[in-house]
């Protein structure tokens, strides 16, 4: 996922594990519209004349590929996929003419406009940055005369300083009282609900990792999902609905339905290094 940084992100695409070569690299994109624009450019035609249906197919292919490659997709990428699937169906099916809904053509036109507008802004940004710039190609007075006041004031305070000052004050104000805010973590309840639905579908031993939901975005969320799913699995073991197996300290944990036909030992080809370090 594009991670918010102030400045150019020079890190390698850390999502790509060395063993696999991914066709899609989600790190380079600034959101779904940016992906669409890149795909549209690959059609090698004027953005005003792209085929929206073709574009929708390409995007859906992109999302499928990203999921196949285990890239974590943010929700807005999936929402866009769903919207495009819907748009495609609207474009391909005859318009029933309810009058209330925008037609497929109107929606396609809006999408085309948005793509063109973003492309224009990306180009403009590049052209702006390519200009001769102060401090790089041309220069200001190197040694301003301190005896000459340029403005009516002698104090060096910028608008940024002023706003930052107020924001700092506000922030200190808010930390005066400790509010414990609800955190978005994956709850044990959710994990239990999910596990109950999944367990019947897995006749064999499966790694605990395989039961985690998709699209967690990494970090805390993935950790909490792992912990909650493990806790949920213990609960189901207690209920006699699940069997758990871990062959070595810190080794991978495997799950199997209690009444299943799974052998006592997990498959040897199972990913041996599925670390549960956390």
């Amino acid at each position, binding site marked *: 996922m594009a991670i*918010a940084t102030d400045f150019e992100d020079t890190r390698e695409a850390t999502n790509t594990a060395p063993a696999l070569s991914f066709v899609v690299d989600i790190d380079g994109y600034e*959101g779904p519209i940016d992906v669409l624009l890149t795909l549209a450019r690959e059609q090698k035609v004027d953005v005003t004349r792209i085929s929206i249906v073709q574009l929708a197919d390409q995007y859906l292919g992109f999302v499928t590929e990203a999921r196949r490659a285990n890239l974590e997709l943010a929700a807005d990428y999936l929402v866009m996929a769903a919207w495009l699937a819907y748009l495609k169906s609207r474009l391909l099916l005859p318009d029933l003419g309810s009058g209330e809904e925008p037609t497929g053509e109107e929606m396609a036109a809006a999408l085309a406009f948005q793509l063109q507008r973003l492309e224009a802004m990306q180009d403009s*940004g590049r052209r*702006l940055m390519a200009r001769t710039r102060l401090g790089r190609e041309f220069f200001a007075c190197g040694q301003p005369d301190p005896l000459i006041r340029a403005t009516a004031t002698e104090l060096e305070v910028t608008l940024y300083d002023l706003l930052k000052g107020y924001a700092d004050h506000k922030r200190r104000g808010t930390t005066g009282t400790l509010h414990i805010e609800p955190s978005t973590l994956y709850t044990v309840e959710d994990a239990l609900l999910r596990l109950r639905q999944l367990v019947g579908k897995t006749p064999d031993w499966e790694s605990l990792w395989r039961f985690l939901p998709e699209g967690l*975005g990494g970090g*805390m969320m993935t950790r909490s999902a792992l912990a909650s799913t493990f806790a949920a699995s213990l609960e189901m073991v207690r209920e006699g609905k699940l069997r758990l197996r871990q062959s070595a300290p810190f080794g991978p944990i495997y799950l199997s339905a209690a009444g299943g036909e799974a052998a006592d030992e997990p498959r040897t080809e199972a990913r041996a290094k599925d670390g549960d370090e956390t």
Partner: protein
Amino acid sequence: MSDLEVQYLRLLEAVLFASAEPIAEKHLADRLPDDADLPALLAKLQGDYAERGVNVVKAGKSWAIRTAPDLASTLTAPKVVSRRLSRAAVETLAIIAYHQPVTRGEMEEIRGVGMSKGTLDVLLEEGWIRPRGRRQTPGRPTTWGTTDVFLDHFGLESLGDLPGVEDLKAAGLLDSGPAIDSYRGSPVAAVDAVDETEETGDGPPEPLDPGDGLEPDVSPG
């Protein structure tokens, strides 16, 4: 030119030379006697320096003295300390420059993603953007625009000199236009309405509930 005018011209020259930042016309006027004809003096000064190694340049309503752009290749920077802007910041800067005054919500709509932290912040710290007022819509969001410092930095005399601005205007790409957000409940569009979503904006997305297939947000007709 009368002796008095020459003296005023020298004053103006000294003030402009002495400042590293562009100086607003009204502040220049403050520095000169009331009977000085500032526009004429500025025009004269600009002419005097037109062919020299330093030029008198205009940036919006401000003026500055800058080294001539054609010397760029021979004039090496003592040390370039300028920071490299992220792609998000460059795009946001372009949107503010070309669409101003523009709210954060509108910037997000154009880019199709929520604003990440540190984007406006960086532009504000550079002194390139400033609040322009409030949009008279629910929530009265602040609108943003560029400053004379921005124009000066990029060697632009006015916003009309932005690269390709006329073409973009003619193509209707600077209009608000029908964006697809109006046809779907996008997470971006919701940001303005519910501020809490902003805080989690950079965090991981909500997991999809099991059994809940991904439904399009638009209810089909």
